[in-house]
């Protein structure tokens, strides 16, 4: 009799471990997927920028410096590739450069009337939002994963089962936290 109870208890504990493992696997995959979503949006921004530069170049003959800044920042971001620290810095530079470009474009009324420019501006600003939302979703997934991993009693077996804590997306460069300066 006692033997049956023991076996039942062991089976229950095994079932619980399986449930915890599957839950953590699902959350970890969500974290990975969210991270690659950020990459997808960043790439989309890389692809949109040459279009933008060529569209506004005709109007903004005197703003070559700003246009060059944007083009160079984009090249650096594409070249940074897999190196996370350099990539994050380059993408930050690109965000600032594009922001400056839009700020400068405010001074050109003909630009506002051009439908192509408006559409492109909407696409770019939407892409910036998507990057932000992708990071937000990544952080939310990280929070869920870490909470699941660290709650009792799952934390007893999460470590031995091979689940590492995930790191949130934070701004590595303190300069990025400063309000971006617009050079006119």
């Amino acid at each position: 009799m006692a033997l049956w109870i023991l076996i039942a208890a062991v089976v229950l504990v095994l079932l619980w471990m399986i449930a915890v493992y599957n839950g953590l696997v699902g959350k970890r995959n969500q974290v990975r997927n969210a991270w690659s979503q950020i990459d997808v949006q960043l790439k989309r921004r890389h692809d949109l920028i040459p279009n933008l530069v060529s569209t506004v170049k005709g109007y903004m003959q005197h703003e070559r410096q700003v246009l060059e800044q944007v083009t160079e920042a984009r090249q650096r971001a594409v070249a940074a590739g897999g190196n996370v620290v350099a990539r994050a810095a380059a993408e930050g530079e690109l965000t600032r450069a594009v922001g400056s470009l839009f700020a400068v474009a405010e001074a050109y009324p003909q630009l506002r009337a051009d439908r192509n420019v408006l559409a492109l501006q909407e696409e770019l600003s939407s892409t910036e939002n998507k990057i932000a939302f992708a990071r937000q979703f990544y952080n939310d997934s990280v929070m869920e994963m870490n909470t699941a991993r660290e709650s009792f009693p799952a934390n007893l077996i999460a470590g031995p089962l091979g689940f590492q804590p995930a790191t949130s997306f934070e701004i590595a460069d303190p300069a990025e936290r400063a309000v971006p300066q617009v050079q006119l």
Partner: protein
Amino acid sequence: MSIVESNPSAGTYARVPGPIDRESFFAAQARNRRTSWRLTALCVLAVLILGIPLSTILGPLFYGLAVLAMDVVNLFTPTPDLVHRFFEGSLPLPSFGDSAFAGYAVIVLVLAPPGALFLLLVWLGTRGLLLRAGAGGILLSLGAREPKRGDLEETQLVNLVAEMGIAAGVPPPRVLLLDTRAVNAAVVGSSLEDGAVVVSRGLLDALDRDETQGVIGHLIGSMGNGDLRIAMTMLSLYQTLGVIVAALSSPFSPSGRTAFQRLARFALQKRGAGPADAAESEAVTQLLATGLDGEDFEVDDLEKEGWKGSIKGIAALPFLAAYFSFWINQKVLGSFLVSPPLALVWRSRRYLADATAVQLTRNPDGLARALLRLSRPDAEVPKAAWASHLFVAWPGKKGTLDDKLVMFGKLQPGIDRRLRRLKALGSTVSPPPPPPPRRGKGRKAQEFQGMKPLAWVLASPLILCFAGVLIGNALATVGVSLAIDGLFFFGLFVIPLHFLLRYLAQSVL
């Protein structure tokens, strides 16, 4: 026009918002999920309780048909004669003693199962039917269209939906537009995969980017939380009852017959995907759920047919009894027992969707301002009142499901309450202040608010009496239906046919 005058939905005695405790949207979501789980359990319980008298009413009809079916089979192979054994007393019926209560329990236990099985099958069938139509097909039949590629605002809307999809970690749903000046948006479909977001052109014109994003966040959050499935289950519940009412009324009512025929045609024919099919499926859905209210109820005029009419009338009498009993029980118990928890469940899902919108946009002000704008009368999309529970907000009550089916309790929570909850999540948009109370009436109502627990204590004996009345009503109607069934259906129809068939079998074999 000040906000107060233009907002007819401002509760007359809503409390003026004072300091409100902040909570995080994750906590709000967890709280709303727990509430909705508990209320769903309550709903399921209420539906099961509702099912007991309903199945008991349907039971005798099935037993009669089963006896006759067995007699027909008996013409070919011998089958046991249940009626004979019933009169002998040798049927294995359960017995709980000699009290009246035990007698009732036995009757229910014997008669209810076939009816319950039938109800379950009809429910699964209508759910399957609804799944094909999808919740909210009415919006497709109203002419929802794809967004135009050249239009900047509509492209912006598609981008907004894509952004919210990324924030929620789900593939973005289809976006459809309604060309109407009403300001509102809804979700349609049966699940996240085939769901669509329907936005009215008026909403794009009236709300700015943040507010529209709040609305879309609410809708995508609602889809992701599974509200579409809940809406379908709710609707299929009422439709099951509608199908049974149509079936029971077919023998004696032309309107019941046409409804049933229309349903049968719809169920059996192959359906296309055009707007005409969507309109037909929506019409049938609506008819089943609300149309068999007894509003255009007619009975066949049998007097002119003479003695043939009298026979038809007597044959239809058990169905008439069953129909009335079923209808009364469904209305009474449904309104008092099932609809309050149902309304509460749907309201808590709305609050959950609001909190999810704040999680997705991280901007409670956007949704709050949008809700404030949606509290005006022009938020009512014409001809779509029947699907009002699928919209973000709906200020009125006319023509909605609240009006026809859910008698007690509103499906859409009041805008004031939603704004208060959003304030707790960090919004800075205040609900409009209540209009100044009329002379003398305001203060009493304000004082009554504080006395609510006392009012519940005083009202509890009344509530118990009322529950007793409900149970008594159920017993009485079921009893009358069973008596009439026993007398007319069994006595005049089943038993003579049964003896005839058995005699035939004996003399033939």
